[in-house]
């Protein structure tokens, strides 16, 4: 059993390394098999759906890694609002710099988005829990429910992280304004206008 899990992880890591080196369109089951030092048959045993199934597994593995990195890079933020601003700006930068994702969105958006969207409820849940914890001890506006506010903030953080819309979010001052005026105005007493 442990060996099976190890082999699976080894295949996913090999696939990720091929994606980084070769790009999305040139990564094949064959190139992943060679890189992992395994036979194609072994890969198909772990991923009977072939390239699609392996791709989906790489996506959810990479999403986990992405949020670990985001958590690590935003660990030092001082207050709740600063933490939100950093999550947003660092998250956007990491997405921009994520060459495999950008390449995949360009070349095979139809293949990368379904698995990415299907892990979103899990991502949303993780972020919601983290936000609920962070909101503990903050001064909430009257009528605000902590879990409900955490859910809404998690949704909006993900929305702005993925799509900036009309906001210039690489400008820290504008990201700060977005967080304080639009995201936290309804949640924390401090930013109630």
């Amino acid at each position, binding site marked *: 059993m442990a060996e099976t899990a190890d082999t699976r992880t080894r295949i996913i890591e090999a696939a990720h390394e091929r994606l980084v080196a070769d790009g999305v369109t040139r990564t094949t089951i064959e190139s992943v098999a060679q890189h992992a030092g395994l036979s194609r048959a072994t890969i198909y045993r772990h991923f009977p759906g072939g390239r699609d199934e392996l791709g989906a597994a790489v996506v959810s593995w990479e999403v986990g890694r992405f949020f670990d990195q985001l958590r690590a890079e935003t660990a030092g933020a001082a207050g709740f609002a600063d933490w939100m601003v950093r999550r947003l700006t660092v998250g956007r930068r990491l*997405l921009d710099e994520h060459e495999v994702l950008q390449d995949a969105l360009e070349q095979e958006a139809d293949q990368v988005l379904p698995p990415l*969207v299907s892990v979103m409820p899990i991502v949303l849940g993780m972020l919601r829990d983290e936000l609920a914890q962070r909101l503990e001890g903050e001064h909430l506006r009257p*009528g605000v429910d902590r879990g409900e506010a955490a859910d809404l903030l998690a949704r909006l953080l*993900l*929305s702005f992280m993925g799509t900036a819309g009309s906001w210039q979010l690489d400008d820290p001052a504008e990201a700060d304004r977005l967080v304080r005026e639009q995201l936290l105005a309804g949640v924390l007493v401090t930013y109630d206008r």
Partner: protein
Amino acid sequence: MGVTARDWSEQYLTADDLERTMVAAALRCVARWGFAKTTFDDIAREAGVSRATAYRVFPGGKDRLVATVLHHEIGRLFHEAETEVAATDSLEDLLCTGIRLAMQMLTGHEVLQYMLQHEPEVVLPHFAFHRLDVVLAYAAELSSPHLARFLPEPAVRPAAELVARVVLTFSFNPSDRVDPNDPLSIRRLVQTYLLPAITPNAELRSPR
């Protein structure tokens, strides 16, 4: 980006009967067979036009079809909601009505829901990352005139965009906290979280 929100809304409003017939035919075909199995010929036949005419209306053929149909549907849905939305007489009611109708349309749209379930690869690219910018800009443009009845000009665009994001997240990742068929849950969202974020100062907020 190429296509702007303005192009989109005009595409719907200025569409002639033939274009609308083609869009409706495309929706019927996809509802029946799914997108992958629908051919451009099927759509032409369903619309009762020749192949040549069909290509004149949709020069990109099947490849451009999803974007075109999506533009038309969003335009049509906004158009249909117009009367009810225009009848609201406070910012709070406008937000409640607009969010409820938009969510009901998205979650109740049979073809969209069928495709999200069975052919997500066809629709999801239009609702994520930078391509979502186009949808947001379009939705914001269509809702801005209504918001401008209650908000000073600089507050309109950010408000419109925030509302569009709220509608999309709760439509694509449903929650009983914000349920389009439970108007009270939407009113709570609006009163508690959205009005403070949207109104520049407290006096503009409508009384309960």
